[in-house]
């Protein structure tokens, strides 16, 4: 879960990391007021959950107080990668002598926590790593290892800080590490970490991503207004609907509605459709063990999409059992009805029970099942995918 810059800075402050003075503005008036309090020059920073704000014009430095309201108005009208700007962080602009980089992340490949520092901050650190790998310095730690002051001081030396600054740097690095560990962060970055003209080290920016799965350990975040949030930019109406229902869903350009079972096949199924010449209309994940209610809603999303010509369903029951799956489909058929041709395959845990549920429902109301071609393990999944491509072509 990504945090807004101002949220990340609030947390950094708790760990003794020096920050620019400033405040949060929800309106041009507030931006003007804060600017007046902290004095010129100020920087206005759009608070959105995406990178590249600078390039998108979301950050403005200004030294004339009278220009602030206009600039703020301008920013509040902005949309950055689909994210509307609703909040500005108004900060005293720093007198920059040097921009450094400091970041902590999880190296999943090596099962390590990695602390990275560079004397080339303020720019894309991936580019630095690619073009000047010698400018990237790191400390790799095992998950339970402490991060010692002497390691941070060493890192400070490696990025060329003068001796009289190494302890300040170490304090910031240790604070960032403590934050990282305390809040189960996946990423905590200060880019740039600014060395100012007066010799102070200040975290000019803050970028944090937390481990969603560990949020249960951090009830205090809720008190700070930091809750699980969605990080997508602009959504289609259907994506908005899916988000409300808690279903991971993405609209694509094609005409085959994808009704997958199992997270892995969700991705692979789309590839199959493409291999066989079709175009998926969406990406969707059922999640582990979906309820009949959820399954029914997944079908609603597909059936109501005018772009969809045919639906491809697949369920290999593991933790998601076939009986629940069948109940979900039947629920959808009864409450909503199917307007598109659908081909599906169902096998795995509890498939006999799933088949029984289908058969009973079909016996009761055979009309509901008219548009469904239903298969079990007797046919490989590729044939089902091919059939879906055919159905879409026929309907097209």
């Amino acid at each position, binding site marked *: 879960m990504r945090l807004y810059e101002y949220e990340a800075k609030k947390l950094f402050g708790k760990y003794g990391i020096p920050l620019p003075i400033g405040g949060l503005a929800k309106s041009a008036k507030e931006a003007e007021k804060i600017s007046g309090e902290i004095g010129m020059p100020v920087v206005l920073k759009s608070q959105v959950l995406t*990178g590249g704000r600078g390039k998108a014009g979301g950050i403005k430095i200004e030294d004339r107080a009278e220009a602030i309201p206009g600039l703020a108005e301008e920013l509040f009208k902005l949309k950055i990668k689909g994210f509307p700007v609703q909040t500005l962080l108004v900060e005293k602009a720093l007198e920059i002598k040097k921009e450094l980089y400091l*970041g*902590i*992340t*999880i*190296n*999943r*490949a090596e*099962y*390590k926590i*990695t602390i*990275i520092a560079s004397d080339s901050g303020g720019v*894309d*650190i*991936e580019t630095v*790593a690619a073009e000047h790998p010698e400018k990237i310095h*790191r400390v790799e730690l*095992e*998950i*339970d290892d402490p991060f010692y002051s002497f390691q941070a001081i060493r890192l400070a030396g490696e990025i060329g800080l003068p001796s009289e600054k190494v302890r300040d740097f170490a304090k910031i690095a240790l604070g960032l590490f403590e934050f990282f*560990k305390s809040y*189960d962060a*996946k*990423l905590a*970055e200060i*880019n740039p970490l600014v060395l100012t003209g007066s010799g102070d080290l200040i975290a000019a920016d803050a*970028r944090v*991503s937390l*481990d*969603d*799965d*560990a949020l249960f*350990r951090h009830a205090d975040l809720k008190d700070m207004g930091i809750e699980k949030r969605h*990080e997508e930019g602009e959504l289609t109406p259907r994506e908005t609907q899916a988000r409300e229902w808690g279903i991971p869903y*993405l609209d*694509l350009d094609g005409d085959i509605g994808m009704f997958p*079972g*199992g*997270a*892995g*096949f969700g*991705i*692979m199924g*789309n*590839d199959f459709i*493409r*291999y066989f010449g079709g175009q*998926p209309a969406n*990406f969707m994940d059922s999640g*582990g063990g979906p309820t009949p209610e959820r399954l029914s809603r997944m079908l609603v999303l597909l059936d109501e999409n005018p772009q969809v010509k045919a639906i491809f369903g697949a369920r*290999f029951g*593991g*933790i998601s059992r076939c009986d629940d799956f069948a109940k979900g489909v039947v629920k959808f058929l009864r409450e909503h009805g199917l307007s598109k041709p659908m081909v599906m395959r169902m*096998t*795995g*845990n509890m*498939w006999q029970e799933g088949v029984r549920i289908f058969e009973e429902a079909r016996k009761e109301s055979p009309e509901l099942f008219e548009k469904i071609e239903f298969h079990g*393990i007797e046919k*490989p999944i*590729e044939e089902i995918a091919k059939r879906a491509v055919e159905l879409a072509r026929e309907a097209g």
Partner: protein
Amino acid sequence: MAILLTKRSKVIVQGITGGGGSFHTKRMMEYGTNIVAGTSPGKGGQTVENVPVRNTAVECVEEFGADFSVIFLPAQFAGEAALEAIYAGIKTVVVVPEHIPIADMMKVRKAARERGAVVIGSNTAGLITPGEANAGIIPDIAFAPGRIGTVSRSGSLTYYVADMLTRAGYGETTCVGLGGDPVLGSTFDEILRLFDKDDSTKAIVMVGEIGGVYEERAVPTIEKLSKPVIFMIGGVFAPPGKRMGHAGAIVEGNLGTANTKIAALEKAGGYHARTFMDIPEILQRLSI
């Protein structure tokens, strides 16, 4: 023969008194899995499906000689349960639940390495040695004893691959689901090495997907393997995914797309299957 799990494995279920635990205990036993005990702290002395329940894994080891564990517990307790199994001396631990915090799984992985245990998962369907034993939530319908080892990041793809292998008459030695959580107890290279040492396994099917670097990290292993590796990679046409952030990309190297993964694995000597149907064709070409 098989890897990790046989009919002689003495399996315990951690969290046996829960809904998932008891349901799948029954299923696993019906398949022939040798479930010797289960744990549920505070419920030691009870039984579930006639399986004795103990408070701790170490009691299961001491009393029943347990050497294999399957964990069915809510995510916030699952990491510590895996540590418990490892500390108790259990050699293979299958972590079924999903959404286990990254830090917890990193601790589990570290403990496993230090104490010589193999952890499968988290967020795994488990593993199955067809005809012998089934540990996890894998539906056994598609599986048959045979001579191909499979390893996949996704449970459902494990089923589909087995379905195809069984259909084509190859059958499987052992099928391993690595799991879908961000940090995994075992990755491709470790499982590939186990299959390479297993006499009954003649070829290995590995199924990866976009994201992470676990496929790329298997390259040096695949190059040295004595057995052919057939691989599938999901997500060739996937919409560009989200990334963890800049620093993450640096430490993990270039997070490959499906296509870069395919290229790397082909270069290492692997055989690319686009769909499940390609797998038996490749096996035939290799005269297996």
